[in-house]
């Protein structure tokens, strides 16, 4: 089984050599409530006029991975076509009690917890089929978490191109510098996906990194 997986990876690598730059599949990853869906919506709205999903203040609103194919991004007269995958938030602990305070019934909260757990598995399985990662972090939170450190380490091990998006810079206590200090080996792009602040820098970085 391991051998087949290896073969698959090798085949994908060879295919990627030939197919690269025409179309890249980028996954948006990060902890819950970092603004992944808001960022996916921002990208889609800017380039297709569409949206990916409805964000929510309740954590784990996105519990299935959503793929939008063929989004054309134009940077400096160069066009890059990307597939965007919005993924459920990665967490190490999911407890239905946390959802009760948002007015969900116990049954709903338990179902949400179960689906969110399945969502984490789905998000991780998708890593095998991606060409690049946008790792979204909430710039108002401490970036040095188990989820962030683990996922950055694993993406490095997979040799997948990675851009860290320091989101929510419109909030007064946001500190993208803290994220930069935590992961100095990676490019960090500070943005506000909600307000669209500095979003052009992100598109430029996407074109440079994944194009």
């Amino acid at each position, binding site marked *: 089984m391991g051998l087949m997986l290896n073969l698959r990876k090798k085949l994908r690598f060879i295919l990627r050599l030939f197919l690269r730059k025409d179309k890249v599949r980028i996954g948006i990853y990060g902890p819950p409530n970092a603004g992944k869906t808001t960022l996916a919506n921002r990208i889609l709205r800017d380039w297709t006029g569409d949206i990916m999903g409805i964000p929510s203040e309740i954590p784990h609103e996105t519990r*299935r991975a959503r793929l939008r194919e063929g989004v054309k991004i134009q940077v400096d007269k160069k066009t890059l076509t990307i597939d965007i995958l919005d993924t459920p938030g990665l967490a190490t602990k999911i407890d239905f009690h946390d959802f009760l305070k948002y007015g969900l019934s116990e049954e709903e909260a338990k179902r949400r917890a179960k689906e969110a757990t399945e969502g984490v598995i*789905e998000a991780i399985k998708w890593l095998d089929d991606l060409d690049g990662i946008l790792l979204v972090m909430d710039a108002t939170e401490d970036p040095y978490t188990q989820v962030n450190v683990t996922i950055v380490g694993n993406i490095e091990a997979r040799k997948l191109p990675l851009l860290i998006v320091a989101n929510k810079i419109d909030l007064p206590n946001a500190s993208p510098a803290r994220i930069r200090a935590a992961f100095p080996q990676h490019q960090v792009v500070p943005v506000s996906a909600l307000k669209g602040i500095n979003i052009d820098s992100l598109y430029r970085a996407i074109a440079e990194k994944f194009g």
Partner: protein
Amino acid sequence: MPHRCTKCEKTYADGDIRILKGCDCGNNRFIYVPKEPKERKIFDFEEVKDKKEISFKEIGFGIESIKIIAPGQYEINIEKLLERDEIVIALQENGRYIIHLPSLLKKKKGEKV
């Protein structure tokens, strides 16, 4: 030095005259200590012991990718999920496990969404 004094634990080489006369401490009882094999044994034992402890840690605390603590309460070992294909679910920490063997390879790309 295979002869060890049973009192002061001083050791003497094979054939040492003091084994016949008595130890410096006045004691005249010695225990024969076969040097090489015994030391090797201690070393091997320690090595095995270490290995056991490591594997215990792996089995005892780390094989689960997901722990179901109670309905609606989950603990997810992201590191394990990232590293392996199979998913090991611990049911309410009572020693029962579910192993989900990878259905990944059977899946086609399109089926994931």
